[in-house]
């Protein structure tokens, strides 16, 4: 393995409180060390920006619904075609590219860790197989528990420990990393052709309300001591006036963990809508961000919408049906046995559309109004808001008021009456951008202890070298250079190996999976639980013995995280 020495690097490492300091970084055997190796290859960075490798805390890149997006939109593959060459495979696609396309494009942007935002447990094999073919990034998978019958029953019976044990069993079985709730209980109502109305109304047959369910799962998550908190996609996504529901959900969240947040609310842009219908649709980002500022136990990601063509995909089946009725185009819907649901439709966000313009503004407002960047992370909910290749543009918008004003002139003329964006003149610094794109994610996902998201001694050498010299650039004016700089690194290192140099991909097979397996005492081991076995025999299409994902075959390079539980 080649060792490296990065000289004259302008380092930003928010975790170790390093802000634009000129340093040398030594990489030995895949880790950052004090002393460089004698045989190290020296790379002169010449004062360019060096940050930890980027981490995407919520993206949809692998899994059955991504793949179904590919099935139903063959026209997407007409864009983004590149032939093979220089060790790269041929790729195609724009909003839902091939797995190699995803991996290469993320690597060129300096990203080294990716989190699949939602995996139906039953579809785990497919998801792991796609991650195996995402060669340049480590993978984490959020596992869906939004309509899990066993957990729902346990929480309805106020048996949080049993819920925790069931979550632990399923996480270890499908090799997931964290607990994701998508529109909690919505999938169960969707199997009756309905949806939940906000968080207070109990659903029939289970006599359980989304609020109780969210609180129960949060407690179970903390009992299991999982590195990541509950990953929550609130109810009522995309409905005008849903901000009240979001605020209500935020109010439910206790502060149970010292190291990180207690709940991670994802793509909050889609949950910050005011108005009573599409005619008086408006932004309520102020209220939502104020609530976030007041509650440090919450971390959000923005889920920014950018204009252009993309594909929406979520486990929120009823929401996708509403979108389908709006667009009258292709639609796919899926029900995953006792676990969850999903829907996929292609969409187009247009500047000349008032609703889309407001959505675009809300994401930026959230990023600018949440004071603490550790609490507000940068995502597009790829590909729901926009494909991840738009991240540099979003960074440009957040760092330059001038660019925002210029873009604001091109959107729908009456947008200004519905949003507060023109009144915001905050411009993010490089340090804040570093928090919102890597350090904040590492803390939120609990990856700091695994040596990710920072450049301290002993950390994994995931490093992005951007061709930007922070001393010589004024991001407020030179936003075009900022966008270009963040779009393509000079070098990207992953685990000490160089994976990209300029626009070339120079490595393969660097990926690993992280997954959690809480240590469960015998009394709570669900392997021989009669009720779980009965559920499988009675309702599932496969047997319980065939349910767990085989580690040797599906996760050849993986890191198992065993957590101490309070059961």
């Amino acid at each position: 393995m080649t060792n490296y020495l990065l000289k004259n690097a302008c380092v930003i490492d928010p975790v170790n409180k390093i802000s634009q300091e000129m340093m040398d970084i030594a990489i030995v055997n895949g880790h950052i060390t004090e002393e460089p190796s004698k045989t190290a290859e020296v790379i002169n960075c010449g004062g360019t920006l060096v940050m930890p490798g980027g981490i995407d805390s919520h993206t949809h890149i692998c899994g059955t619904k991504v793949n179904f997006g590919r099935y139903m939109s063959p026209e997407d593959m007409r864009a983004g075609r590149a032939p093979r060459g220089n060790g790269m495979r041929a790729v195609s696609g724009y909003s839902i590219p091939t797995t190699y396309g995803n991996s290469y494009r993320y690597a060129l942007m300096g990203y080294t860790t990716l989190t699949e935002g939602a995996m139906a447990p039953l579809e785990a094999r497919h998801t792991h197989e796609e991650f195996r073919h995402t060669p340049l990034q480590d993978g984490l998978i959020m596992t869906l528990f939004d309509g899990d019958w066993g957990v729902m029953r346990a929480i309805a019976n106020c048996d949080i420990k049993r819920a925790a044990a069931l979550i632990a069993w399923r996480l270890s079985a499908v090799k997931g990393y964290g607990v994701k709730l998508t529109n909690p209980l919505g999938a169960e109502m969707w199997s009756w052709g309905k949806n939940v109305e906000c968080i207070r109304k109990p659903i029939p047959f289970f006599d359980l309300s989304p609020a109780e369910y969210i609180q129960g799962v949060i407690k179970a998550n903390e009992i299991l001591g999982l590195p990541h908190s509950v990953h929550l996609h609130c109810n009522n996504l995309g409905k005008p006036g849903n901000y009240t529901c979001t605020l209500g959900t935020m109010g439910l969240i206790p502060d149970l963990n010292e190291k990180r947040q207690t709940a991670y609310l994802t793509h909050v842009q889609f949950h910050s809508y005011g108005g009573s219908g599409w005619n008086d649709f408006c932004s309520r980002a102020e209220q939502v961000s104020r609530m976030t500022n007041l509650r440090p136990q919450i971390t959000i990601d923005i889920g920014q919408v950018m204009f252009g063509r993309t594909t929406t995909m979520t486990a929120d089946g009823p929401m996708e049906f509403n979108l389908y009725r709006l667009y009258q185009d292709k639609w796919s819907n899926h029900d995953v046995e006792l676990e969850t649901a999903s829907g996929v439709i292609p969409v187009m966000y247009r500047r000349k559309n008032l609703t889309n313009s407001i959505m675009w503004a809300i994401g930026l407002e959230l990023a600018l109004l949440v004071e603490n960047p550790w609490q507000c992370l940068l995502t597009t909910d790829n590909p729901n808001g926009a494909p991840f290749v738009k991240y540099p543009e979003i960074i440009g918008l957040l760092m330059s008021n001038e660019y925002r004003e210029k873009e604001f002139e091109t959107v729908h003329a009456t947008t200004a009456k519905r949003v507060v964006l023109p009144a915001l003149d905050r411009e993010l610094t490089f340090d804040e951008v570093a928090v919102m794109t890597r350090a904040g994610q590492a803390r939120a996902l609990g990856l700091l202890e695994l040596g990710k998201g920072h450049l301290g001694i002993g950390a994994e050498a995931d490093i992005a070298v951007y061709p930007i010299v922070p001393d010589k650039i004024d991001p407020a004016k030179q936003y075009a250079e900022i966008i270009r700089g963040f779009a393509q690194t000079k070098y990207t290192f992953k685990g000490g190996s160089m994976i990209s140099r300029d626009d070339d991909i120079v490595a393969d097979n660097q990926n690993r999976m992280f997954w959690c397996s809480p240590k469960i005492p015998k009394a709570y081991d669900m392997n021989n639980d009669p009720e779980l076995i009965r559920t499988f025999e009675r309702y599932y299409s496969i047997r319980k013995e065939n349910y767990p994902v085989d580690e040797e075959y599906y996760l050849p390079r993986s890191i198992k995280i065993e957590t101490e539980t309070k059961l």
Partner: protein
Amino acid sequence: MRRITLIVRGSTNPFLPIEAEVITPEILCKTVRVNVYVGNQKMQLSEVFDIRVDGEAAGPSATEIVLIGDASRVKRVGEYMTDGRIIVDGDIGMHCGDFMTGGTIEIMGNAGDWLGREMLGGKIICHGNVGNYCGSDYRGGRKGMRGGEILVKGNAGDYCGESLFGGVIRVMGNADLHAGTNMKGGNLIIEGDAVMPCGDMFGGECTVFGHVDDFMPTFAEIGTVVENNQELTVFTGDLAHRNGKGTLRVGSYTRI
């Protein structure tokens, strides 16, 4: 006026397609030293065709390309052409006249699938039959042919004018299954018979002078009209779709 005559050589493997998107007046009026792919092998145009060039070049509008011999596996002829003229003496392969915006293509024999796919303007005349997806969109697309004219003197295959968005397609023979599916505009005229046309039609106008087999049940009859001394029954639909506002006129029909 420059005339470029391309005679297909028999020497290349007859099972391999020839990707000949360079055969357009814009490119060949400048040079004939261009490459084509035969299978996955890059070859000189002159290795695949015998080339004869007559006259002086004066831009694409004064250029005529004549293809002689069996060109039924030569694909993408006239792709993105803007002006000039292509004459195909025999049959032509798939994707002839894709995305064309102007000029004329005249095919003396039969044409393959995807003739004039997503074309925007210009004119294609086919004296023989055409394959499937004449004047349609590509897989997953939403807009097919958007302008121009396709005239087919023989029969058309399946999915003729799928997702038609503008322009005119006139088929003088019969059309096979699902002509005009997903039509959103434009004009599709079939002088012979058709089977199950215009499913999921949003807009546009389709006329079938002959007999329609398996007529879709989701069209509402709104009257009759006489055209070319023939009485046609007029329908509107497709009512299975919320915004179905297409017009379908048929000579006679039997319902599914």
